[in-house]
C-alpha cells in the first residue's frame, strides 16, 4: 500500500515537472498517468499491491471531488443574474454531448465488431 502510493506520487511529481519544463497545456497528473501507462506496457502489467491500491483509490474517486465541489458556495451568486441562459446551456450541452458521443461510438464500433468475428 505504502510502496504503491509512493510510486503514484513519484509519477505525479515527474508529470508536474514535465508539464512545467515543457510548458504543456495539461495538468501534471495526466502526464503522470500517461507515463505510468507506458511503464505498465513495457513491464507487462501492474504488481498486485499497485492494482489493489489503485482500485481502493478509484473506488472512492467521488469523495475526492467533494472539497472542490463545495467551493460552489463561493461562486453561487455568480450564477445569479444569468442563471437562465447558464442553466439551459449546461443541461442542454451536457446531454447533447453525451448523446452525440454515445450514438456515434455505438454506430461506428457496432460495424467494426460485427465485421471482426467473420474473419
Amino acid at each position: 500500500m505504502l510502496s504503491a502510493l509512493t510510486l503514484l506520487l513519484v509519477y505525479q511529481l515527474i508529470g508536474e515537472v514535465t508539464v512545467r519544463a515543457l510548458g504543456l497545456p495539461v495538468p501534471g497528473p495526466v502526464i503522470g498517468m500517461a507515463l505510468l501507462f507506458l511503464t505498465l506496457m513495457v513491464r507487462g502489467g501492474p504488481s498486485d499491491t499497485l492494482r489493489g491500491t489503485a482500485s481502493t483509490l478509484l473506488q472512492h474517486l467521488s469523495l475526492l471531488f467533494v472539497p472542490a465541489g463545495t467551493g460552489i458556495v463561493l461562486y453561487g451568486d455568480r450564477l445569479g443574474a444569468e442563471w437562465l441562459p447558464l442553466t439551459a446551456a449546461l443541461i442542454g450541452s451536457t446531454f447533447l454531448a453525451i448523446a452525440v458521443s454515445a450514438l456515434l461510438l455505438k454506430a461506428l464500433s457496432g460495424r467494426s465488431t460485427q465485421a471482426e468475428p467473420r474473419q
Partner: protein
Amino acid sequence: MSGDFTEIWVYLSTSPLLGLTLTLLAYQAACWIHKRLGGHPLANPVLISVALLAAILLLTDTPYATYFDGAQFVHFLLGPATVALAIPLYAQWPRLKAMAGPLLASLIAGSLTAALSAYAIGAMLGASRESLMSLAPKSVTTPIAMGVAERLGGLPSLTAVLVIITGILGAVGARYLYQWLRIEDHAVRGFAIGIASHGIGTARAFQVSEQAGAFAALAMGLNGLLTAVSLPWILPWIETLFAH
C-alpha cells in the same frame, strides 16, 4: 458553560480536523443514502455531500477557506488517483486499441458538441460574452477548463462552478439518457460520460463497472487535451459566425 462552548468552537473552527472529518462524514452519509435508495443516480454521492457541506458552511457562517484547510487532504489525493487511472486503462487496453478509430471520431464529435452547443444555447438566451467564454470549456477537468476560459476572456472562477455542475448533471442524468437511447455497452456509456462530464462522470462510471470507468478515464484525459489545444482557436471563429 457557554464560555466553554465558545472556546471549543474557536478551537474546532481554526483546526483542519473539523473540515476533514466533516468531509468524510458527509460522504459516508451520502453513500449510505445512495445505498438505501438502491443506487439511484439522483442520489449521487457528490451531489449529496456537496449539498450537506454547503448547508453546514452557510448555516455556521464558516468561510470556505477555513473548511478547505482541512478538506485539502482529501483534495490532494486527486493527483495520485488520476495517475492511478493508468491501471484500469492498461487492463482495458486490448478493447481500447480495437476501437481506436471509432473512439477518436466520437471524441472529436462529442468535444465539439459540448463546447459549441453550450455556446449556442447561452448566446441564444442572451448570456454575456464573459459568461459564454466561461461556459465553453466546462466539460473538461477544472484546471484545464479554467486555463482555457482565461485565454478566451472568460472568468476562471465562474468556469470552476460550471465545471462542477456539468459533472454532477452528467453523473445524475446519463443513465436515463442511455436507457432512452438504448445504449447498453459499458465501454460506450463510459466513454461518452467521460467526454461530457470529466472526473465526476468518471467517478460515477467506476461505480457502474471497471470497464465503464476505464473508458471514461480515457475520454476525460483525451478531451482535456483536445479542448486545451483546439478551443482557443475554434471559439473566436464561432464568435464571428454568431456576430453576423
